[in-house]
């Protein structure tokens, strides 16, 4: 808490951070190189090898390291090819909400007045609607697909970003350097993006990382309800819920995608936490 933590700020990282960084880097690399890493195509059926257990257990085949699913598809390949889908999905969701949230937040925070009132009330309304339900309704209207999942979850994530940016902006606009910039004739755009935004950046990054893990979990939940990615896209959440009736007879089909989600989300949370510890001015004071 006191001196020891202080010494660890820049030079070295805690075990948690390292672990988080390692996990996230690992899955990022897997995503980027997935077409070369995966031994098979995601939708390639081996009709004579249905529900093969992983290679190390009895009845497994060396060819299918993590076994095959009920349609005879190699699970390892599906997991590898699912990595860019799940991570990309989370990333798109976060980018979507950051774009909208930042823009509206800056508008509201720097202009103030009725713009602030209007934006804030709209965000309050979105906030008041339970997020999962809101996403379900959006998808019911638009139809289930990857793009619509991104839109639905992105929309749900906008208010938290908005609040952070608006809060930060409200604090900054009253500061002298902003007033000085204004007196020198800086326009709204310059004030908002050159002066105010950089000061909210650290919080945005933290919220972004944590939002990423949330988005991955929520996408999996939508997949569970049959509203997420559509076949044959090997999204982890959909893989998990598609095979959940096999939880007893062929547990590996359920366990492996579940573990992948768990690992990625833990990694992102660890990373987000340590980022918060470093970047959040409030918390920086403590350490």
């Amino acid at each position: 808490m006191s001196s020891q933590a202080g010494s660890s700020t820049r030079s070295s990282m805690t075990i948690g951070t390292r672990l988080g960084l390692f996990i996230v880097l690992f899955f990022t690399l897997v995503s980027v190189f997935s077409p070369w890493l995966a031994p098979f195509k995601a939708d390639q059926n081996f009709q004579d090898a249905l529900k093969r257990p992983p290679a190390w257990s009895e009845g497994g085949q060396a060819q299918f390291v993590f076994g095959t699913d009920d349609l005879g598809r190699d699970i390892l390949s599906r997991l590898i090819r699912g990595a860019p889908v799940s991570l990309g999905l989370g990333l798109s969701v976060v980018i979507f909400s950051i774009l909208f949230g930042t823009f509206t937040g800056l508008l509201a925070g720097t202009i103030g007045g009725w713009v602030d009132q209007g934006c804030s009330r709209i965000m309050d309304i979105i906030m008041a609607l339970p997020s999962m339900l809101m996403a379900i309704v959006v998808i019911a209207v638009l139809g289930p697909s990857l793009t619509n999942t991104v839109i639905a979850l992105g929309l749900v994530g906008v208010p938290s970003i908005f609040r952070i940016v608006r809060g930060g902006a409200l604090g900054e606009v009253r500061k002298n350097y902003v007033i000085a910039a204004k007196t020198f004739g800086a326009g709204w755009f310059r004030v908002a993006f050159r002066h105010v935004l950089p000061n909210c950046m650290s919080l945005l990054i933290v919220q972004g990382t944590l939002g990423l893990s949330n988005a991955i979990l929520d996408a999996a939940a939508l997949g569970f309800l049959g509203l997420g990615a559509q076949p044959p896209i090997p999204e982890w959440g959909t893989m998990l819920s598609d095979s959940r009736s096999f939880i007893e007879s062929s547990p590996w089909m359920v366990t492996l995608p579940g573990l992948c989600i768990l690992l990625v989300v833990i990694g992102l949370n660890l990373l987000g936490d340590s980022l918060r510890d470093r970047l959040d001015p409030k918390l920086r004071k403590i350490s």
Partner: protein
Amino acid sequence: MRKSIFRAMLLAWTIALGQLTFMPLVFAGAKTLVYCSEGSPKTFNPQLATDGTSANASAHTVFNRLVEFKEGSSEIIPALAESWVIAKDSLKYTFKLRKGVKFHSNSFFKPTRDMNADDVVYSFQVQMDPKNPLTLKNGNYEYFTSMEMDKIIKSITKVDDYTVEFVLSRKEAPFLANLAMDFTSVLSKEYAESLLKAGQVLETISTNPIGTGPFVFKSYQKDTIIRFTAHENYFRGKPKIDSLVFAVTPDASVRYQKLKAGECHFVSEPAPADIENIAKNPKLKLMKEPGLNVGYLAFNTEKKPYDSLKVRQAIMHALNRQSYIDAVYLGHATIAKNPMPPLIWSYNDKVKDYEYNVEKAKQLLKEAGYEKGFDAEMWALPISRPYNPSGKKLAELMQSDLAKIGIKLKISTFDWPIHLEKSRNGEHQMIQAGWTGDNGDPDNFLNILLSCASVPSGTNVARWCYKPYNDLVTQAKQMTNQQKRTELYKKAQVIFKEQIPWVTLAHAQVFRAMSSQVSGYTIHPFGGDLLKKWILNKIIVLALTLFGASLISFFLVRLVPGDPVLNLLGERGGSVEQIETMKARLGLDKPLPVQYLSFLKNSLMGASLVGYSMPIFWWGLLLILFFSVHLGILPVSGRIDIVYDIPTKTGLLLIDTWLSAEGAVAFFSALKQLLLPAIVLGTIPLAMISRMTRSSLLEVLSEDYVRTARAQGIPERLVIWRVAFRNALIPIVTLIGLLVGSIMTGAVLTETLFSWPGVGLWLVKSVEARDYPVIQGGILYASFGVALINLTVDALYTKLNPKLRMTQ
């Protein structure tokens, strides 16, 4: 329009022969049979029921018909009618009714007479004549009209108390079979009249049904439980069980877990994946029947290129149907070659099937002028049915098969109402469909699914109107000579196979699973102390194990020779100071017990991180597997043990149980049922709150006033609880406020998993059903709740934060 949508809804029929009979189930010592049903009935009036679930809860339990299907076959046997005579011209049917058939009674109706011709005439007339005073004004007798009974029946008259005469307006071969269908169930006229006389709403007959069947309706709690008791004076003899309970359990894997845990004695439609395990499990019994169904892939023959026979044949040859049987149906089906299952008379076994042959398919495609293939779209069946357990998976397999002949397939899935609506309009190219027969007549498949007349009504999804075929099935419908009909239907099947408007996929077997210990089963009235002890023991053991494991892992690591610090510093080592700082940073300079405590603390934070990162449905399934199935100490799902029938006073079972006669035992049962859902739903909030508490407390502890308090020598315990915690509470309370809102409606997954009739589930269901008033009202309700909680949180702030108190 409604009618045709409805006809299409019949595609959803699930139970083989539409029959699920509870009557013959025998329990040696047992008195209550629990059936885990797949959903809630929409009505208890079989005249209005359009789905198998409603029919099971009404037609097959509470009611009888003039004639009925013999169990497990399409043979027609006498029921309320003892015998019948069909006139030579086949236009007049005369039924002799059984004497001494008693109706049920309930708290506000006691029948004064036996079932007679009045009841039969009434049951048909209300459906035929919208002006009949006993017709339900809001009722939609869809089944009756969609079977064209209003056109077929010219008149129905009471000849004497025990004789009824039907006059038909045209020859209709399947008429007798129609009379065995659920919608012709006989209701009590006296009941309807007595309701009107008492000034009660007539709709009560659909919510509190009175029939002649083996079971008497007792009570229904929506989405939870339906209770029936045995009908003492049932005309086929009193059922062997005293009471029958339907525990509504929408999730197939949960149903199976409940069966294993002994919470259900009987389930229909176990998931195909579980069938192997059920068969292996000595505690369970699996019953298998060939299903009266067909699953198929229909081409929209009105659209290019599917209007070309060669293209259809090419696709037929390209699809490896045996692989679908293995992978999707898990082997519990046979390849279909005709549009109706072999069980139905006139099935033409001489029809030759198309073989799987990729080369031939390519050749045919070339002949049709699509050598390079084309882009195609297929609509997957959005729901799971025995004839197609997983439309999505089936579509994925077809996608890879079709890719081999150059057809690029796009798979689309719409939700059920939209799927029906769009397919009726013919917007599809290829579509997965299926049918479960509802009266065992070939007409029920060959005519309804493939005739010209069913193109506009939406059941002919191939939109295939082929005159030579259509003539045959229309002709056969108006004959009564079964031999001649057989000939015509056999010919029709040959034409179908030549033209292949569908790829016939499978006839699936239908399964029911039940507990084999049923005979010796007696439900423990809570099992009281025994269970409580059990839980306690298990929890203590669990806690001890965890503690032991953590101790061992901690000390073992430290007993292993080698200094972790030196290891960390690398081979070049470091100065003494460096080592000391490193030790201090890792906390290794503290005594072992202190190190252990901090290790515990860290692993607790780690555990909360894992909880926070867990996909909640996976977590729930794991918990059910462990606590309910493996250890068997907690119930799988539901709100209270079904032995307790608690009258609803407040709607909160935890309070109602204290007000009821059962008292504490029932209370504990309700509490026990709450445990798992609460843990699952609470995991993420628990993790979030603990993390928030940690960071908030850390922040406050660094404040000056905390330092002052410490300097004054106030004990650390007091510093933390009195000084710091109170101030740290503000962000925690905010978080709790936010979480309550999302928990309240966001618990959809938990509710689905544990069959908990909650707001979230209700809203998701209404989104699926496009029930706009419910969606609007529900969302408003949820938002109101959230706003209310935020208000409370704001009020709490002022209490908690002295600064805010001062400014006011």
